[in-house]
């Protein structure tokens, strides 16, 4: 019969027997292995090694700051991420332009010609494209950042490094993909007669800062969540589907403004979105300076755009700090959950 008959019943006895058996097995394995490792005896004198360093914790809580102290490592991770994206793909990097170009074509055709939204908006194509660049950057950073830790689990489990480096690398990868689009945008703006003012430049800088800070905060936060529940990467892509319609790019802001008195709550939620802020500020930079007749344009920006923008930037920086706090708290659990 079973061994349980011989031993007194009870959890601890069974446990002890299991341990004893495990010990025996390990001993036998050790005997088999004892000669398995070749023995190389030391020869020559032992030197003393003087280590010129402090006694520190092997895993410092440097966070984002530590990431930016290692630009070489960040560069390698970014190029790794790019290489991985285009592994076994014929068109390679071109895919990140084909997709936005197609989307632009569809939106331009459906919104512009079928719904004739371009009639009230001069340079509608640039109005739309500016928004698409901003949303594309945000979406790629957020979605890429969310998946980043999970995708790099082979490294995260075995090597010590500031793990914030993966979401940060997604920010850089997204910027790398967005830059040529911005270049296209600038060229078309120049063709259409771009007369920049300092106000426009300030709007552009503020808009970029808001987008980067918000995208990085979201990427950092969701990358940690995604380690625990993979549902978050689907949630992110679902929200990003909506995001294209939640910012004033395929329709002018005037339509939203028209509703601000009848639906003050909805209006406030709409403009509180940092991506909306970023899109509006970038339109102020790229699209608005093209227009000669600004009088007949109507309320194309919120009247309190600057105050809102500065407050939103401050909020985004606080969010980034909170995301970092959250990340440091839970990252200790990453190796066992991956």
């Amino acid at each position, binding site marked *: 019969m079973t061994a349980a008959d011989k031993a007194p019943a009870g959890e601890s006895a069974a446990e002890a027997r299991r341990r004893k058996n495990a010990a025996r097995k390990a*001993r036998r394995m050790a005997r088999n292995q004892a000669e398995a*490792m*070749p023995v190389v005896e030391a020869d020559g004198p032992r030197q003393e090694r003087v*280590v010129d360093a402090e*006694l520190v914790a*092997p895993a410092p809580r440097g966070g984002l700051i530590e990431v930016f102290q290692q630009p070489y490592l960040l560069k390698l991770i970014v190029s790794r991420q790019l290489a991985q994206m285009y*592994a076994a793909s014929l068109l390679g990097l071109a895919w990140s332009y084909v997709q936005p170009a197609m989307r632009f074509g569809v939106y331009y055709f459906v919104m512009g010609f079928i719904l004739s939204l371009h009639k009230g908006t001069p340079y509608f194509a640039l109005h739309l494209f500016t928004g698409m660049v901003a949303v594309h950057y945000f979406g790629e950073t957020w979605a890429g950042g969310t998946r980043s830790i999970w995708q790099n689990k082979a490294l995260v489990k*075995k090597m010590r490094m500031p793990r914030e480096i993966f979401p940060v690398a997604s920010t850089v990868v997204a910027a790398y993909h967005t830059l040529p689009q911005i270049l296209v945008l600038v060229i078309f703006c120049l063709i259409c007669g771009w007369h920049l003012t300092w106000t426009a430049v300030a709007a552009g800088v503020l808009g970029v800062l808001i987008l980067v800070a918000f995208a990085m905060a979201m990427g950092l936060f969701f990358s940690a969540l995604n380690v625990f529940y993979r549902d978050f990467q689907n949630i992110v892509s679902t929200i990003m589907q909506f995001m294209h319609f939640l910012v004033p790019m395929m329709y002018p802001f005037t339509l939203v403004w028209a509703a601000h008195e009848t639906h003050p709550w909805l209006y406030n939620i709409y403009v509180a979105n940092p991506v909306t802020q970023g899109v509006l500020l970038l339109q102020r930079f790229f699209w608005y300076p093209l227009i000669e007749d600004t009088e007949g344009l109507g309320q194309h920006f919120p009247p309190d755009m600057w105050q809102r923008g500065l407050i939103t930037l401050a909020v985004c920086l606080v969010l980034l700090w909170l995301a970092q706090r959250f990340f440091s708290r839970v990252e200790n659990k990453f190796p066992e959950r991956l």
Partner: protein
Amino acid sequence: MSVSIQVENVSKQFTLQYHRTLKQMAVASIRRLALSEQFLAVNDVSFTVEQGESVGLMGLNGSGKSTLLKLINGVMRPDEGSIRTRGRIAGLIATGAGFHPQLTGRENLFLNGAILGMSEAETKRKFDAIVDFADIGKFMDTPVSHYSSGMYARLGFSIAIHVDADIFLADEVLAVGDRPFKKKCMAKMQEIRQQGTTIFYVSHATASVRAMCDRVLVLESGRLNYDSKVVDAGSVEGGIHYLQYDDADKDDEDTDEELGADI
């Protein structure tokens, strides 16, 4: 001599999660099953290692050896207690380096080197030595996912040993290598040992621990139950004896009997 590794009252707890989807969790909570369980992998361990000491870490499977190495390496942080180390740490944890499967051996070499703290210039300087030692020839430009486990271990070990670290951790990594390579690795480890590098060596092979280590630590269910420095003033033999790895075959027969009975 200076302190190289200082481990004070370190504990590490793991959460074993049984149910991952909401549906499974709901079913489990209706049946009153535990949703998760806590498991203490390393339990209140304290020791100090001097620079240049070579420590053999022994224990049965699942006794917390790899977890302890991960804590020293910095991949995990202890839940309680503190660990402090001096200088650069390199090594291989839980059979195999942290390679990215889609990258080639060459790209992984640079990435791994950067993570271990080497600059681009330093990696380039050591590149030939690393490739020579690993001796995997044309596979340097093949993605590592196509590597055999032996090639994987070769490249990982070669990078780690060439980092010029102050602390070297070796966790049963060489189990998959062939005999000539194992011999080469052991010789290399003796070389860095003589240069004064602190070594942590995990192995069940008593003869090789005897030759490589000055001191033996034995972990049992996460507890540090034997430290040869405390008990036998540094003898390695005591640790091997403690684990009864040098026992005669006397218990083998009844083991087989019991195993037979279990079946």
